[in-house]
C-alpha cells in the first residue's frame, strides 16, 4: 500500500465543497486544542505522533473504513511517518503536504464579482488562519488591501492578470498576522497607505489614509473611498470600492464583530466600535457587499468559498449588530473574550517596523487562529 499527499489547495476545495474527511492529527494535544483544520463535515482523532512510535495497531480500530483519512502534523515529517505506518497496515491514507505550517500560509484566490467599468474584485482566502485580503483590478492597474506576508501570491497573480500594482492599503495595524503591504509597495513602487492614527509609532514612510481619501485605480476610475471607522483599533478605516463593496477590515465580519482589546484599550474603544457599527455603517447603502478582513468560523463561508454578505442582511442577522442595549454590548465585547492571538504584541511591533524577525520567526509568530472577532 502506498500513501498519498494532499496539497493545501486540495484540502481547501474539500472544505468549500463540504466534503467529509477524517483527520488524524498527530500533533500534541495542546496544539490540537488550540488550532486545527476545520470543515463542515470533518471528524477528528488526535493522537500525538510520539505515542505511535512503537506502532499504530492500537488506533486502527478508531479509524473509519469508508472515509478519506488525512494525517496532519506541524510540518509534515511526523504525518509522513504515521501515514507510512498506517499504509503498511493496509489502510489508504493521505498526509497534508507541509503540515499546519503550509496550511497556515495557503491563500486561495476567489473572484467576488465584477466592477462597474469591467474591473474585478478578488478575495484571497487564507483558510487556515481565517484572514482575508483583496485585490481590486481595473484597467491594467491593481490595488491590494490587507495583504498577508506571502507577497509572491499577489505578485504572481498580478503578473498573470497583466496588471500593475499601484496602491497597497492596510485597513488598520494588524495584530494577528504580519502585513505584506509595505514589502509589496516597496517592490512594485506602489503607494502604501495606512491610517495615521494607527501609524503613530511606525518607523517607515507611508501615505496617510484618512476619512474621505479617494484613490483611483486605472484610468476608468474605480473609486476607493475611505471611511473612518474606529473600534478594533483607533485608526481602523473601511473602504467603499466602486460604490458596491464595503471593505470593513476588522470592524465587521459576517457573523461576528471586531474585538476592541488587541491594542490594550478595550474600555476606551467600545464606544467607538459601537458608533462605527451602529451609526456610521447604518448611514451606508444596505445594498453594499461587506468584505471583511477575517472570518471566524467556516460557517461564514459562502458556497463558492468566498466570505461576503450584503450590509442590509448583516444588519438583520449578524449577532454583533443586534445588541440593542449599550451596556450589554459593552459587556460582550470586553468580557469573556477569546484568548488573544499568538504573539500579537510582537506582530504589532513587526507591522510598525520596530522589529524585523526572519521568515521562520514570522511563521512561528503567526501560528494559530486569528481570534480578532467576538460573537
Amino acid at each position, binding site marked *: 500500500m502506498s500513501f498519498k499527499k494532499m496539497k493545501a489547495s486540495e484540502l481547501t476545495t474539500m472544505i468549500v465543497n463540504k466534503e467529509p474527511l477524517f483527520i488524524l492529527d498527530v500533533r*500534541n494535544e495542546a*496544539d490540537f486544542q488550540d488550532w486545527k483544520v476545520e470543515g463542515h463535515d470533518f471528524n477528528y482523532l488526535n493522537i*500525538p505522533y*510520539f505515542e505511535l*512510535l512503537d506502532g499504530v495497531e492500537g488506533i486502527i480500530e478508531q479509524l473509519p473504513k469508508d472515509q478519506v483519512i488525512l494525517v496532519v502534523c*506541524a*510540518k509534515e515529517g511526523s504525518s509522513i511517518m504515521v501515514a507510512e505506518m498506517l499504509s503498511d497496515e493496509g489502510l489508504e491514507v493521505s498526509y497534508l503536504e507541509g503540515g499546519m505550517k503550509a496550511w497556515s500560509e495557503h491563500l486561495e484566490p476567489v473572484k467576488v464579482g465584477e466592477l462597474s467599468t469591467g474591473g474585478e474584485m478578488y478575495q484571497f482566502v487564507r483558510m487556515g488562519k481565517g484572514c482575508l485580503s483583496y485585490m481590486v483590478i481595473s484597467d491594467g492597474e491593481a490595488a491590494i488591501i490587507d495583504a498577508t506576508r506571502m507577497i509572491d501570491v499577489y505578485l504572481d497573480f498580478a503578473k498573470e492578470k497583466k496588471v500593475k500594482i499601484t496602491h497597497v492599503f492596510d485597513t488598520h495595524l494588524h495584530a494577528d498576522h504580519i502585513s505584506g503591504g509595505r514589502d509589496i509597495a516597496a517592490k512594485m513602487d506602489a503607494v502604501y497607505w495606512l491610517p495615521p492614527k494607527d501609524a503613530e509609532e511606525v518607523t517607515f514612510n507611508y501615505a496617510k489614509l484618512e476619512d474621505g481619501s479617494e484613490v483611483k485605480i486605472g484610468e476608468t476610475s474605480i473609486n476607493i473611498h475611505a471611511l473612518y471607522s474606529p473600534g478594533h483599533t483607533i485608526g481602523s478605516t473601511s473602504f467603499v470600492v466602486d460604490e458596491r463593496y464595503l471593505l470593513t477590515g476588522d470592524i465587521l465580519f459576517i457573523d461576528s464583530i471586531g474585538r476592541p482589546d488587541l491594542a490594550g484599550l478595550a474600555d476606551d474603544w467600545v464606544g467607538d466600535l459601537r458608533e462605527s457599527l451602529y451609526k456610521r455603517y447604518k448611514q451606508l447603502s444596505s445594498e453594499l457587499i461587506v468584505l471583511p478582513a477575517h472570518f471566524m468560523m467556516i460557517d461564514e463561508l459562502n458556497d463558492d468559498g468566498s466570505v461576503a454578505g450584503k450590509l442590509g442582511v448583516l444588519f438583520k442577522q449578524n449577532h454583533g449588530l443586534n445588541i440593542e442595549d449599550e451596556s450589554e454590548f459593552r459587556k460582550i465585547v470586553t468580557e469573556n473574550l477569546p484568548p488573544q492571538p499568538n504573539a500579537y504584541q510582537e506582530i504589532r511591533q513587526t507591522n510598525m517596523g520596530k522589529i524585523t524577525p526572519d521568515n521562520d520567526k514570522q511563521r*512561528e509568530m503567526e501560528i494559530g487562529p486569528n481570534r480578532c472577532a467576538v460573537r
Partner: protein
Amino acid sequence: MNEVKANQTVDAKGLACPMPIVRTKKAMKELEAGQVMEILATDKGSKADLKAWSESTGHQYLGTVEEGEVLKHYVRKASEYEEQPERHHPHVIKNDELTEKIAKGESLQILDVREEAEYAFGHIPGALSVPFGRLQQELNKLNQDEPIYVICRTGNRSDMAAQLLESKEFKAVNVVPGMNSWSGKVEGI
C-alpha cells in the same frame, strides 16, 4: 551562564520532527533511572513535544536553555522509587513551615539532593546542591552542628538522604512534599 549537567546527550540538531523524539526515546533506554538526558535540537517544535512526551511517559521534563539556534532540553528519566510514597525518616517539615522560617530571615542550612540539572532550573535561594548519588562522598560540605533541611522533588530522595545523614550523625529534617509544590521563592535559569 549556568551549565546544566547531564549524564548523556542526544544530538538532534538539524533534524526535523519526529526525529528529535525518536532519538530521545531510543537513548532514554540506555539511561539509568533518575539520570538526566540532554537533548540538542534546532526544531522549534521539539520543546512542546518533548514536554508532552515526557508527561505521557512519566519522565520529568526539567527545562530548556536556548543558545542561539540550539535548544538544549533536559529530561530526567523516571525512577521507580519515586512511585513509592512510603517515608521512613521521622523528622519532617512542611513546605510552608520552611517558607515561614526563610521569611523570618533565619539562617538555614538547606540541602537540595536532586540532580544538578533539576537544581539549575529552579531551587530555593541559598540551597546547597548535592545530588543524592554523591551525598556520601560530599558530607564534608555540610555543617554537623546545625539542622539540615533536605529537599528533593517529591520528598522521597530527600527521605533517603535524611536517613543517610542521621546515620552519619547529622541532624536532618526532610522537607515535604518538596520542590514539586514549592510556592516560596526560587531562583534558577
